[in-house]
């Protein structure tokens, strides 16, 4: 297939000019403002909530608590709309204050008197599983676990010439979408109209209906422009949506709530911190004989999707390597921390950090080149994963070849300034596509469109545009297939009233599912039009060509503009439209044998990073990142590169500076002044390479692109740091303190001779 050209995004103009409307830009007559009330301790028993004083404040319309939640406030172990008897973390809402203005609502919230008893808390998942720990749910803080067992690890370790054991930890981090979470609920004749940004509008609709005692068909969700998601705007939006909906039902007025940045930090979900213990055995020649992995994830105060996160981590924990004998067990435990939930990567960045650091440690012990050990053990066509799945369309070696070509890891860094040292590191991964067998439902999406009489194609898709360019993929596929200029194809706003539920836009599944559904829909419409014309032109429908806004047959004896062809069709058939459903090939998982076809396909990636370390301060500057990702087939090269580069910059925060800290059960990191995102001034030269090797097993041949690039960077950076200092860091992030300590050790051990500090 000819290389596709990059197409500008239809949503870009509105966003760049400020014309796009985000939820906070929307106002409705008579709208009230909702503010959440919280108890500022990690764990508390609620004795009494008294809203009398707040209600006396000018403008306050209502103070509501868990007792006022109209439907099911809480499912077991999951987040309540408002905590009823006990708060399990400092972010838990216990009441809402509804007022005429936002300021009054905030002031009112301060006047709600709460009588509570502080309970013992536990912030560390290891402590949480110990005897006598304060219990969050039911009988134990155990939340979820998964295993993957292959061969016999004991036997595998016996075979090994060398065995090493290492432990790695990853930190709590967050999405940091620039748009904070929020929603507006409007009471209507037949239910509630909810405006909210989110990646799964139908999930929001279901959750809100259940929390608020409504039928699902009584909740309609309209999605305004989205100001960033990165895996968030999920369970948080369900809670916010339910709070504004209950407020709207109880006051019969439109109700709005937008979290402040502090609230996003305090109540919002975060990435699961993992502690991972690896034991690996290998032959002298580098062949791995066995790997044993035991992991523990901090689930935080409520369950949300932690079981699925742990499952993905378990499936991918070994990294992309052929290993005969594997034992992996990863567990999640409840703590009184903020809730852990989906963040771009969904468990992959954590295990990839560990397994890819481990590969370098193993290579070092064996005296092997880090690229070589990956080539020796890496997946190839037909390799069997930890869960017994036979792999197809394996592009790992293609990624490694490209890495070798674009980022020679052994190249000596040149022009190193005095007082600095440089190092280079690499990593590679495999990552399951889309939802996988961790979820029961079929992984499917629909795309519909109507061709109007002016030739415009009006499209409906359930996949959200959250900044990734997902809508344009759909438009582009329709454009290519129908031979219609993309300017004549318009994406309709996402509204659950008329768009088909296509699942949430998660798991890098947007292009695979909706792109292929768009292809089905476009072919459906094409056939409909071709059938009409073929009859008139007395030709076979297959002979009709759709190209450059025209419909014709090869010898041009018959040729119409697309618009005329459509209008002609309207004289013969009732409608001109395309309808397409598409689902990923089936997958399955057997919980008893811990095996199955986990994901319909996997994508592969490789990364190289160069760092420059300041020996005085311990500051790590990442100077170069090459990120190679197997995307199957590229739909829009510029977008694919942007997705990769965006993932890299997000991952650099994980590697170097981002962390959510608590002290005595309270959040220390309360805003962006302490939660240190990388800025453009920290950005390295990023070479983003979307790679086209073997296509994936779907009609478009595409794979997901949005998450994998968050998974490769931190191990490559840590391997580069090790390369520079000779000292291994095993805990994310590489902050000034830990790097300086490594420098000191390095000097003490004589790796950094004279240190370069003193010329």
């Amino acid at each position, binding site marked *: 297939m000819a290389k596709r050209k990059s197409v500008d995004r239809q949503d870009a103009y509105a966003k760049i000019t400020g014309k796009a409307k985000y939820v906070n830009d929307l106002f409705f007559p008579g709208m009230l403002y909702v503010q959440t009330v919280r108890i500022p301790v990690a764990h508390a028993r609620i004795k009494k909530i008294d809203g009398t004083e707040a209600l006396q404040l000018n403008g306050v319309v209502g103070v509501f608590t868990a007792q006022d939640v109209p439907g099911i406030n809480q499912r077991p172990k999951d987040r309540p709309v408002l905590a009823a008897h006990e708060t399990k973390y400092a972010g838990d809402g216990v009441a809402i204050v509804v007022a005429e203005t936002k300021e009054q609502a905030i002031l009112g919230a301060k006047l709600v008197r709460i009588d509570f008893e502080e309970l013992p808390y536990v912030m560390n998942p290891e402590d949480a599983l110990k005897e006598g720990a304060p219990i969050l749910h039911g009988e134990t803080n155990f939340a979820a676990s998964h295993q993957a067992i292959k061969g016999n690890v004991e036997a595998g370790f016996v075979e090994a010439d060398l065995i090493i054991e290492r432990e790695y930890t990853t930190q709590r981090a967050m999405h940091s979408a620039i748009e904070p979470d929020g929603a507006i609920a409007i009471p209507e004749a037949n239910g509630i109209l909810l405006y909210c940004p989110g990646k799964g509008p139908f999930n929001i609709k279901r959750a809100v209906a259940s929390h608020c005692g409504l039928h699902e068909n009584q909740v309609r969700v309209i999605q305004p422009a989205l100001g960033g998601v990165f895996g968030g705007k999920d369970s948080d939006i369900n809670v916010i949506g339910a709070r504004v909906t209950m407020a709207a039902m109880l006051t019969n007025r439109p109700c709005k709530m937008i979290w402040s940045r502090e609230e996003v930090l305090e109540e919002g979900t975060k990435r699961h911190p993992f502690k991972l213990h690896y034991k690996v055995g290998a032959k002298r020649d580098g062949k791995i004989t066995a790997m044993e992995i035991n992991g523990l994830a901090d689930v935080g105060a409520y369950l949300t999707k932690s079981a699925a996160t742990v499952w993905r981590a378990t499936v991918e924990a070994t990294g992309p390597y052929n290993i005969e004998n594997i034992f992996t067990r990863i567990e999640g435990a409840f703590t009184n921390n903020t809730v852990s939930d989906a963040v771009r990567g969904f468990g992959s960045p954590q295990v990839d950090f560990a397994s890819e650091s481990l590969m370098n440690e193993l290579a070092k012990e064996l005296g092997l080149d880090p690229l070589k050990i990956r080539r020796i053990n890496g997946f190839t066509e037909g390799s069997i994963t930890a869960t017994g799945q036979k792999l197809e369309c394996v592009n790992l070696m293609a990624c490694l070849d490209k890495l070798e070509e674009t980022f020679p890891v052994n190249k000596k860094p040149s022009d190193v300034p005095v007082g600095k040292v440089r190092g280079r590191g690499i990593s590679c991964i495999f990552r399951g596509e889309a939802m996988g067998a961790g979820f029961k439902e079929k992984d499917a999406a629909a795309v519909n469109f109507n061709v109007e009489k002016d030739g415009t194609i009006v499209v409906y898709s359930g996949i959200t545009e959250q900044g990734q360019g997902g809508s344009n993929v759909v438009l582009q596929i329709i454009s290519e297939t129908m031979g219609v200029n993309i300017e004549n194809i318009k994406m309709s706003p996402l509204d659950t009233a008329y768009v088909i539920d296509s699942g949430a836009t998660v798991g890098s599944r947007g292009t695979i599912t909706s792109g292929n559904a768009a292809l089905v829909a476009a072919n459906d419409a094409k056939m409909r039009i071709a059938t009409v014309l073929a009859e008139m032109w007395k030709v076979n429908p297959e002979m009709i060509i759709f190209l450059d806004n025209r419909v014709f047959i090869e010898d041009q004896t018959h040729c119409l503009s697309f618009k005329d062809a459509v209008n002609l069709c309207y004289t013969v058939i009732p409608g001109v439209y395309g309808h397409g459903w598409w689902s990923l090939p089936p997958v399955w998982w057997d919980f008893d044998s811990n095996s199955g076809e986990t994901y319909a396909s996997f994508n592969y990636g490789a990364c190289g990073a160069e760092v420059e370390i300041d020996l005085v301060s311990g500051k790590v500057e990442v100077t170069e990142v090459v990120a190679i990702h197997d995307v199957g087939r590229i739909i829009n090269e510029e977008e694919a590169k942007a997705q990769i580069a965006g993932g890299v910059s997000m991952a650099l925060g994980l590697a170097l500076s981002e962390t959510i800290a608590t002290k005595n059960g309270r959040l220390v990191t309360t805003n962006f002044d302490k939660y240190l995102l990388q800025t453009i001034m*920290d950005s390295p030269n990023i070479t983003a390479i979307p790679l086209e090797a073997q296509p994936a097993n779907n009609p478009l041949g595409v794979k997901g692109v949005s998450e994998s690039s968050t998974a490769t960077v931190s191990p490559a950076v840590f391997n580069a740091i090790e390369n520079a200092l000779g000292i291994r860091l095993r805990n994310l992030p590489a902050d000034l303190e830990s790097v300086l300590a490594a420098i000191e050790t390095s000097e003490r051990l004589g790796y950094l001779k004279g240190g370069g*500090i003193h010329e």
Partner: protein
Amino acid sequence: MSNYFFQPKYLKQALEYKRDYEVANLLAGGTDLVISMRSRADQKHEIIDLSKITELKTIELDGDAICIGSMVTFTELIDSEMLFDKVPFLSKAAQSVGAPQIRNRGTIGGNICNASPAADGIPPLVCLGAQVNLQSVDENNEIHNRTLPIEAFILNKGKTAIKNYEILTHILFNVPSETATMGFDKIGRRNALAISRLNGACMIKMEQQIVQQIRFVLGAATSKPERFSGVEDYLIGKELTVLILKEAGRLASDYVLEKTGRRSSSNYKLPVITSFTEELIKKTLKAEVKVNE
């Protein structure tokens, strides 16, 4: 919310407001004030906005004296060729602040009055032996001026010697000798929008490889940016060999330990102070000596 918001055009008016509303907050760029107002429970104070007072926005060279108005922003400091020529380390310090938005709003006067130990604008001024001028007006409409060395003006973390009725109007210092070299450096957790983990300014005059004069200031090390006279005294009259610099670094770190005691941050800070001191002095020496045409 505040009761009154004053926006005087002239310094005199501002002084009168400050006399009449002593607890009023002076608003310069607001990059510290607005943040603290947001987190403070009591937000009831009046605000006197100084942003329309052009008298406070000048940068002047008069003979050997440089006078910088308190409302001069970091961006204006950076853009001043005269300052870059005469006191390049002040320009560099200004350049290291926050991000363009913060530098466009944040003022040197605000930086000084906020008195953060990590303030980036202060160490070069301390090195220069700068004075701050404080003005007030009394009931008889008589103007009073008070001048204090900046080191004496800043008392402690967040504390200055300013009186409730005073406004800091300008900062004064003499152009350093043409043979003096100057340096500023900072350690932050990232390359922009980073509060200094440690910063420092240094000014040295050498004669035939021997230190004639040195002023050495560290910020974010003790409770305020201050001159390290132990380091200075040790280095005067010496040739700056590797061993001597190492000893200077050790003296700096010992001084900090003595002042602050051991803290959780000491494991990081103390060794870094040692090597940062050495490096800053070395970089200062290498800084180009400006020669007047």
